[in-house]
């Protein structure tokens, strides 16, 4: 659920915010793989009553940069990322950082929590990574949500082909077998992401959007 914002920054400001976070001109691939998905979610998709749970809490720089650009996290908070007094750590903490709705970092936890929240009728988007899907706990959530037709849930899988043993025949096929509506889109294409991620009032099943990005 978004906080009231005084938005002043846009997509083009994100590199500068990322540099401010890390003090580095170059950025960890995993922090950037989620950048466009997060931007589209916060800029075009999520409403005030919606919930976004970042399950893949590893590499959260892009998440913090987007929250800062949207005025949810104060830009000043980006300085000192990961330091003792910072509210922004290498894995997000909902008790510390404004706008963070799930403390994450250990992989395979967010989707289950998202299912619980979505069961109440709340619209929930949950971002996981393709590598994160190695964790069996994700599949408990995928199976259950699919079988009961949990239509208020959207899982966004950022796929940068980092799963060590891969996903033969594709991640989306696995979700479809469990009863989800699934599609693969270009994870850098904002229009395609928006179209795939916007709420579908007619949905009767949970949705999976695999956002493909190159490493």
């Amino acid at each position, binding site marked *: 659920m978004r906080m009231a914002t005084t938005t002043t920054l846009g997509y083009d400001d994100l590199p500068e915010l990322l540099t401010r976070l890390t003090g580095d001109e170059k950025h960890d691939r995993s922090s950037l793989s989620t950048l466009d998905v997060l931007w589209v979610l916060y800029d075009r998709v999520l409403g005030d009553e919606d919930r976004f749970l970042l399950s893949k809490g590893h590499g959260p720089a892009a998440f913090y940069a987007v929250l800062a650009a949207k005025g949810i996290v104060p830009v000043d908070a980006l300085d000192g990322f990961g330091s003792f007094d910072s509210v922004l750590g290498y894995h997000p*903490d909902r*008790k510390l950082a404004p706008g963070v*709705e799930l*403390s994450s970092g250990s992989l395979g*936890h967010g989707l289950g*929590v998202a299912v*619980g929240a979505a*069961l*109440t009728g709340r619209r929930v988007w949950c971002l996981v990574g393709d590598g994160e899907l190695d964790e069996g706990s994700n599949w408990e959530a995928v199976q*259950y949500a699919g079988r009961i037709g949990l239509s208020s849930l959207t899982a966004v899988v950022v796929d940068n082909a980092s799963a060590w043993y891969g996903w033969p025949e594709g991640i989306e096929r696995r979700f479809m077998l469990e009863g989800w509506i699934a599609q693969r889109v270009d994870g850098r294409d904002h229009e395609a992401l928006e179209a795939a991620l916007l709420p579908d009032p007619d949905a009767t099943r949970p949705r999976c959007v695999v956002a493909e990005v190159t490493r």
Partner: protein
Amino acid sequence: MTGMRERFYELTREALDENDRVAVVTAQIGNDAIGEHPRHFDVGIREQLMIGVAAGLSLEGYRPVAHSYTPFLVERPWEFLKLDLGHNDLGAVLVSIGASYDAARAGRTHQAPEDVALVAALPGWTIHVPGHVDEADRLFRQALGGDGRTYLRLSEETNHARVDPGWLKVLRRGSAGAPLVVAVGPTLTPVLEATSDRDVTVAYIATVRPFPHEELRDALADGTDVVLVEPYQAGTSAAEIAVALRDRPHRLLALGVPNEELRRYGTGAEHRAAHGLDAAGIAHSLESFFETS
């Protein structure tokens, strides 16, 4: 008499009907007894998801109750207790059945004497170990009305009578300086029998976390010897006694289920005896402990 498990199911059905805030998550245990309800979610045999779903419901303002057999509620999804509930600071009521060895016939896979130590290792949990169905009833209602993280450990073993509310209840007072015997939950009846001819103070607790440090000091009065009898892993609360008596010389005998595999089937009563937790076993342990004082 209705057992703790049956009472829990009755109260759960009642709570679902009467309290819009209550939601129940199960994983194929207790499913039929609780019955269908729009806020009863059975997730299939998926215990990690059971805890995650409880956390998600809590995030949305509900009071989730998650329920299963002890090893599947606490041990398999332990990191989900730590993170989904604990680290996210979300409340839930976890209710287990099976205790340490109720399922003696089912073998090691269905026995979890480690459960209280595991939950107690995490910050911020209240842990109840009722010794009677009426205590279980009261503690469950209390937990439903709260918003914290509560673990309620139900057992088939039960005391002959309930103990009135109170954190640490002194049930029998010994002479000045007498040893203090603390019975936890369903160990009370054998403790009372084992101590019937001894000059000891007998106290009872059903809520072991937080632990009643000050109350224990008061109950021990001028004594130095403490015997703690817990129906789960021996020594689970020994460190709490050490904290309570940190500045007082004392001796402690901590009885409970030994941290070793019994590797036997049979009945709960047989396991209780094998672990030295029946009246005879407790009396025997007291004898050796007091001989050396």
